[in-house]
């Protein structure tokens, strides 16, 4: 998130006793989990279970009522944390700035923090867009892109930060199955290439079981289980089983 004192290694994340209420309604009811450096950790759960609120806490967009979030053992509330560790969030909607071209969006972090010369920024932007297969979209406006392309552009924007921790908010929502596979592969490839610690929030079962090293299931503001994909699949809890095996039943 910052331009100084960059560290190259991936980081670990610990969340302890996290609570958050909005207008008296408790959304997070004491969340505890740990994400190990370099792993892909997927937080699954039905809509409204508190996944996106949790994500906003992890990146510092929301302040917790109680509990703590530690990055490599340091609380995210300490002022130096932003200067010490690079974190990026890929928003559900992409959240590209509509007044800028795709290339300008991807290079925004470098441009605003004056980390490179305009020529170098242009080159880095081209590389990152190439990485996500969007080289030809550099001069397009976000409004001209499909949903999947917007998400890939948002991933490219996150890559420019060279994050040590990358957070994805519902990366495959609103996408067709083919685009979902492309995004899932992007998450895997990025993790393999850079060993970035990845935290994915999703209710997409295929994505979760396809990319995760470990999965947590959150229901109604509480984590019900955490484990490897196989452990979660075999976890004997009606809520988890219902969520994992929900399907249409057509009466004949």
């Amino acid at each position, binding site marked *: 998130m910052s331009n100084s004192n960059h560290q190259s290694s991936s980081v670990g994340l610990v969340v302890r006793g996290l609570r958050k209420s909005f207008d008296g309604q408790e959304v997070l009811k004491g969340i505890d989990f740990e994400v190990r450096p370099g792993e892909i950790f997927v937080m699954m759960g039905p809509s409204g279970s508190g996944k996106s609120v949790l994500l906003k806490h992890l990146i510092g967009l929301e302040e917790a009522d109680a509990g703590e979030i530690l990055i490599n053992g340091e609380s995210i509330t300490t002022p130096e944390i932003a200067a010490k560790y690079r974190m990026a969030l890929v928003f559900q909607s992409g*959240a590209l*700035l*509509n007044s800028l071209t795709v290339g300008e969006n991807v290079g925004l972090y470098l441009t*605003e923090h*004056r980390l490179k010369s305009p020529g170098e920024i242009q080159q880095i932007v081209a590389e990152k867009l190439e990485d996500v297969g969007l080289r030809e979209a550099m001069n397009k406006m976000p409004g001209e892109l499909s949903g999947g392309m917007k998400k890939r552009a948002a991933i490219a924007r996150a890559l420019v930060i060279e994050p040590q921790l990358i957070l994805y908010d519902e990366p495959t929502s609103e996408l067709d199955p083919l685009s979902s596979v492309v995004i899932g592969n992007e998450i895997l490839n990025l993790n393999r290439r850079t060993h970035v610690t990845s935290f994915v929030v999703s209710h997409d079962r295929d994505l979760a079981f396809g990319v995760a090293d470990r999965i947590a299931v959150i229901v109604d503001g509480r984590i019900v289980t955490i484990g490897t994909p196989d452990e979660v699949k075999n976890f004997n809890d009606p809520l988890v089983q219902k969520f994992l095996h929900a399907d249409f039943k057509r009466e004949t």
Partner: protein
Amino acid sequence: MFENIGEIVLLFWRTLLALPNAWRQRQKVLDQFFEIGNASLLMVCVLSFFIGAVISLQTGPVLVERSLPSAVGGVVGIAIAKELAPVMMAILIAGRIGSAMAAEIGSMRVYQEIDALRTMNINPIHYLVLPRLLAIAVALPMLVVFAVLVGWFGGAVVADMNHRMEIPFRVFFADLRDIVGLKDVANGVFKSFCFAIIIGVVSCHQGLVTIGGPRGIGRSVTKAVVNSIVLIVIFDYILTRFLLK
């Protein structure tokens, strides 16, 4: 409106603290400046010409009937320079530019673009508010100077052509120069600078606190314009009282 006054003052203070970053944001300031000038210049011309014309038409015949034709230029000149140009242009800019600021920032807030800026450690006040506030604080006083000149011209045209006045163009401006001084124009320009700050801060604040979808953006735009106009009228009285001393 008044429940947000503390937040508005805080936003203004934070923007002042961000002033050392102004040079880094110069391109955005220029873009916004061009946007304001380009969008408003024609409207400013039309509005100020007819304001000058109607003031001349309303006051001129009354003064001429009372054997005070030499006062027409002064009355029109003072009214436009000190009151009508700054207030009317501020209201025009609140409607034209304040609404656009609130809508643009409001939609950025609703569609998480501002959250995205924060996650990249880019301060929205530096990136969004500062350039807009600087641009409007320079552009509105310049537009007001322009409006004063066009308004005087409109008043002079009507005074010359209206059969109940028939005050020649040159005489109108000679009378105007006798009464209106540079200080009067500076007075109006200073007012317009204060109004520009009000429009900029109120509109940006309203954009930043937008919630909900398109309806929320619409509500923010309306509030930005109405609140700006109410504050302009209140501050107009306060500034006039202060500047009359």
